[in-house]
């Protein structure tokens, strides 16, 4: 393992630890006990939240904004691909060329989608009003990381990818990228509420 790889691993470890600590801190805040008799099960809501509730038909944020929705999907598919490429590299696994090209393509598309979303944030008056420099920086860091990952897949030059992994890993727990953990917690709470209140059973066919 090279020094750069060791530092990368250390940065990733910091990131995982800090994100876990942030989640734990939030989770340890006071939470009123849900004492009302449930009308349904929390599990049914959680299954919905991570299942059918993720479909574009289930929410207008997707169905009313198909381009942004697709860009978001492509962006996050790129991030997952970048993560897979990183794990493979740190594990010393040699990726077959076809897989490397596939991951590289996904990261290229992801970086492009990220730039589209960044441009949207820069040009939309509402998004300008609710964005801090962290919002732009978080996007830009991930875009650069994806681009460097794609470069690594296409040229086998991993140094920029590892350097940017360090930057990303160090920054992730400090800003908006924290949502990579909190998304799942929030979605779980959303589903729990829908399930307990018996809303889930009626969720199909509410549009016409």
């Amino acid at each position, binding site marked *: 393992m090279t020094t750069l790889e060791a530092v990368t691993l250390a940065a990733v470890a910091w990131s995982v630890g800090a994100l876990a600590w942030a989640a734990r801190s939030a989770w340890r805040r006071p939470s009123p006990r849900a004492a009302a008799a449930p009308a349904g099960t929390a599990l049914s809501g959680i299954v919905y939240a991570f299942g059918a509730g993720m479909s574009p038909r289930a*929410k*207008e944020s997707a169905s009313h904004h198909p381009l942004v929705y697709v860009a978001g999907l492509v962006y996050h598919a790129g991030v997952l691909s970048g993560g897979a490429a990183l794990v493979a590299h740190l594990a010393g696994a040699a990726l077959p060329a076809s897989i490397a090209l596939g991951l590289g393509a996904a990261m290229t598309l992801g970086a492009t989608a990220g730039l589209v979303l960044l441009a949207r944030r820069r040009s939309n008056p509402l998004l300008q009003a609710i964005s801090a420099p962290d919002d732009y*920086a978080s996007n830009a860091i991930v875009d650069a990381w994806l681009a460097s990952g794609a470069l690594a897949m296409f040229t086998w030059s991993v140094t920029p990818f590892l350097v940017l992994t360090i930057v990303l890993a160090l920054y992730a727990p400090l800003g908006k990228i924290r949502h990579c953990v909190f998304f799942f917690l929030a979605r779980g709470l959303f589903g729990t509420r829908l399930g307990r209140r018996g809303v889930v059973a009626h969720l199909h066919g509410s549009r016409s």
Partner: protein
Amino acid sequence: MSTGIPLTPAPAPPAPDAYRRRLASLEPETVARARAAFAALLTRDHAVHLDACVHCGLCTTSCHYALVDEDPRNSPAYKVHLVAEAFRQESSAWARMFPGWTGARPVDAELIGEWVDVLFGRCSMCGRCTANCVVGIDVPALVRAARGALAAAGLVPPELQSTVDAAVNTGNNMSITHDDWIGTIEWLEDELRAEVGDDTARLPLDECDADFLYVLNPREPKFYPLSIVAAGAIFHRAGVRWTLARDYFDVTNYGLFSGSPEAAATIARRLVDTTRRLRAKQLVLGECGHGFAANRWLAPEWLGEEPGFEVRSVVDVVADLIRDGRIELDPSRIPNLVTLHDPCNLVRNGGVIAPQREILARAVTQWVEMAPHGYQNYCCGGGGGQLSMTRFARRRLEAGRIKADQIRATGARIVAAPCHNCVDQLSEIGKEYALGIEVKTMCELVADALVRRP
């Protein structure tokens, strides 16, 4: 007979301009109170949702305020943003070190002014944004937390605060005196007997061991007394054992909207204690959306205990009575096309979605859903305390245009609305947008359709 209700009238709210003047020159102690209260009110769920929001703004097109006015402040994302700024300041040392970079901001006089304008004045806490959010951010809960901080600092808009104060001080939000309440029920009992043609029909008061205690919106005895007669006619015809309470009869809980958990708990406690005092098997909540959400779902959290009895909506009860054949309906008595409004706190946030549809299927000749409907239906615009906050009335009516368009598209002449707050707002937007509609509660429709026995 003493009822325990203090009969002192609620204090008059300060003139609106006094409130504005106060906001413009807030004392440091008041700001500090709001700041401390905000920090204390933040729960696990708030923290998780605030850290999960990706500031994408895609919720904007799901909000009736934002759909009628493109001002960014109407977007739910902006509302979350205002709360998130203060949250970062409160929760993260990193954010406090670099506030310009992270978007952290202390609760100060300027932010408080924005909270009042945006979180009180541009949100009905309907939760449609949550339903359509990429993540499922609980926007109404975040808005309520910030409102609660303002409540702790005495900065709730006075019209809303006076509604809460009236409930806390007099036992109901319209300050109806004990004598007026009892007198109204006695008068309405005569009306009920005439309506059902049975001199034994009653509007029972304080009867112990009944099947259920029925609580209602104080607008009913004050403005819509025949709504009480309608419920009474249904219960009488079904032969159920029910009762009203002599003291606490108010289903509403505006503490939910002012954000004050203390006021909300005080109000909720009375219905729990009254149900226990009368040993009623169930607490049945009259047609009030937020009253349902408050008493069915949130009261046990505010009180920190299970009630020990079932809490149900009267809509659910009436649907049961129809299903069990305990009342007979003649839908031909309501020949006009009916459409159904879904009160947010009963449906999207409450889970009562099917019973009102079962009722309409049996009580009226023809009815049609709005588009969208059910979980996805739009707010009428009257929730979140908007009906009481007259200073924001113009915005409320403009936001009601979305609901007006929905109603117009159905071609219905009657709008069924299982919520008295919604009835008021729908009636207002009916006039504002010349819809030519009649707005009725479910009980009123069912009572109209009851088969008269010889």
